[in-house]
């Protein structure tokens, strides 16, 4: 199993029946593949429609039914069209049960940077600042390191997405919970030791006596 699939399958395990969930573009969007239909989860992309479903068979795409990345999707029974004002009303108003986002850096305060690398990459924050500020639960799904450098750092050096402490970080090595005391290591990936995780992490980790092995959906 590759790193991205492992992360997506672990995140899928966080999803409870009937939730309204927003999945970011890229890795986070893979989470939907591992959520059983019978959970009655509604997926939302910030561009509209609550109740996004899988890409339709070729030739049955609708140019007016896409995810936030512009990819074709379908609508599940009970889907509802919403405009951007309602979409972000739900997000900012706390009606969104969970958002899963990518990250560039997470720090010991549990704060996220994921929208800008000054002078290099300025794609814009899109919906990320509203999602992190407003969603009931924020999960960051990302690879542990980029180009050999840990993305879990003592203090974000990149521009912050929000002051809000995110709720959970899932990487291919570990599940980490930001708390008031700092970053608590909760789970290790199969075959990965606590020492491996410490070695791969620039930030200090609080390591409880019991560390579970990741459960995958």
């Amino acid at each position, binding site marked *: 199993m590759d790193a991205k699939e492992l992360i997506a399958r672990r995140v899928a395990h966080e999803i409870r029946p009937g939730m309204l969930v927003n999945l970011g573009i890229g890795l986070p969007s893979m989470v939907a593949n591992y959520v059983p239909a019978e959970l009655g989860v509604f997926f939302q992309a910030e561009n509209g429609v609550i109740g996004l479903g899988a890409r339709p068979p070729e030739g049955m795409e609708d140019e007016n039914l896409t995810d936030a990345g*512009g990819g074709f999707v379908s609508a599940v029974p009970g889907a509802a069209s919403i*405009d*951007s004002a309602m979409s972000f009303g739900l997000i900012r108003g706390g009606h969104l049960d969970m958002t899963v986002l990518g990250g560039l850096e997470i720090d010991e305060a549990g704060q996220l940077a994921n929208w800008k690398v000054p002078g290099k990459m300025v794609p*814009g924050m899109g*919906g990320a600042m509203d999602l992190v500020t407003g969603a009931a639960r924020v999960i960051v799904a990302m690879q542990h390191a980029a180009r050999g450098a840990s993305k879990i750092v003592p203090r974000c050096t990149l521009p912050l997405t929000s002051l809000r402490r995110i709720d959970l970080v899932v990487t291919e090595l570990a599940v980490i919970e930001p708390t008031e005391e700092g970053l608590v290591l909760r789970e290790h990936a199969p075959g990965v030791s606590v020492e491996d995780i410490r070695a791969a992490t620039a930030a200090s980790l609080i390591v409880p006596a019991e560390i579970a092995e990741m459960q995958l959906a």
Partner: protein
Amino acid sequence: MKGALRPAAAAEMIPDGASLLIGGFMAVGTPERLIDALVARGAKDLTVIANDAAMPGRGIGKLVTARAVSRVVASHIGLNPELQKLMIAGEIEVELVPQGTLVERIRAGGVGLGGVLTPTGLGTEVEQGKQKVEVGGRTFLVEEPITADFALLAAYQADYVGNLCYSLTAHNFNPTMALAGRTVIAEPASIVPVGVIPPDAVKTPGVLVDHLIVRAA
């Protein structure tokens, strides 16, 4: 009752230097024929306010490629590398706004509110230079309202009163922008006789719409 204009006639009404609210999300729900007509007439120095800059060859991307735009206000330009280069080169000015804040700023402009009090962006680069207000013990950014000379909308269906319906994820910014353009031009996929659209199906009342674009040939 409103007559319907050809795209070229609408593009003639929009002078160089005008500010335009343009509907769409990654070019889904964008008035492509209006944009083609603006490019064809050689429009210059436009300010474009939109969720994103789409991608080269689609929607707002075509205006960027044609160098018709001098300023962009958007939440995301990450899928338009051409605009990113022009921004970094200083040829096009770009203001990045969180997506939920952007749609509320346009709504505020359209519905006569003085601005938006939002928690989004607090403690980030977005708050620079902005007024803050405390309400009920919490702090909020004051984000200013947005209006523009024109709103260019895509719709699914219209009648000749100008009532508009939208489809699925092609709603996005269109219904909100309909309130905030001093002149509102809508490009519907179809136009039906007055009385055909049920009142409960109308998302933008015709009183907001100044001009319709004829159906595609």
